[in-house]
């Protein structure tokens, strides 16, 4: 059901005038936030919770994949099931697996490929931004994040859905 709502026709106002994601999505969207930096993770979690999101955090790409059910030992166990999350927001620069690599893995999954992925970075590098957008990232956001960035994210997701 969660998978369908993201993709299908959602009757209702798309004016983006509501501050609350609950009104736009009809329930609390579940967001997976991935960042190796504790302070950044704390901040993004707070920003999302202030917008009525349910938030799960992960400190690296591997943990994120495990949560999503795409862990290395799970192979294709996800076939036929639905996504746990409505949105993934991830930092680009992470040790081990970068946000870009995480994005690719999500887009390669038949079940998860429709889940919007947003990339965050402290560096404004056009080639990096283009690379992510070409790989299917919904949006690229510059850090440090503030409340207005999350509002912009919401408006962007609403346009994408309709």
């Amino acid at each position, binding site marked *: 059901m969660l998978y369908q709502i993201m993709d299908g026709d959602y009757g209702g106002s798309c004016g983006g005038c509501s501050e609350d994601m609950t009104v736009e999505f009809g329930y609390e969207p579940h967001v997976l936030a991935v960042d190796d930096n504790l*302070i950044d993770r704390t901040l993004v979690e707070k920003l999302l919770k*202030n917008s009525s999101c349910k938030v799960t955090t992960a400190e690296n790409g591997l943990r994120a994949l495990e949560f999503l059910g795409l862990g290395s030992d799970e192979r294709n166990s996800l076939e036929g099931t639905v996504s746990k999350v409505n949105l993934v927001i991830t930092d680009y620069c992470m040790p081990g697996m970068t946000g870009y690599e995480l994005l690719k893995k999500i887009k390669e999954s038949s079940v998860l490929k429709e889940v919007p992925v947003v990339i965050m970075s402290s560096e404004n590098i056009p080639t990096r931004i283009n690379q992510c957008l070409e790989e299917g990232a919904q949006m690229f956001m510059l850090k*440090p994040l503030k409340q207005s960035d999350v509002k912009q994210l919401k408006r962007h997701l609403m346009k994408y859905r309709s």
Partner: protein
Amino acid sequence: MDFVNQLQRKFIDYSSSLHREGIVDDQFTQLRKLEDENSPHFVMEVASLFFEDCEKLINNMAIALEQKQGVDFKQIEECIHQLKGSSSSIGAMRVKNACIAFRSFSGAQNREGCLRCLQQLSHEYSLLKNKLQTLFRVSVASRCLYVCLVIFCRGNEHAEPFPDVLVFQLEKQIVAAGGSIPRVH
């Protein structure tokens, strides 16, 4: 109430000076906007996490720069990257700028330059920590004092009545800050 107003004035002035001196920037203001009744101490909590993180990273860099057999500049760059990110996210402008300067010396693998930068970074961090802790103390003190006065007024039939909802909220805050509510008969 005049004393409370003075204390609140002090808080505003002190907070403004932090911005004027470049200790904090607009991102810090953004963080304060995120506080609400559910998380009245969000900024203090994030600042505490930052202090811990910063101390650990400064320590790791000091150790790395001591290594006689050769400095691992890659490790230092990684530490700087982390610290630049965190300081930027909480609005600690001078710490962030110290990281940027540090990064160029580390990139050039200049040990002497790095040692100077580390010293500068430690200095900026100490300054930030002292100032923020003072700010938090003034903030908590004024809130506690305000609640005490409110409760006193409630018990004093000659004072102006306070809306009960406001008193309840303020009482919750004081308890959340680790205090207790004096019973007024």
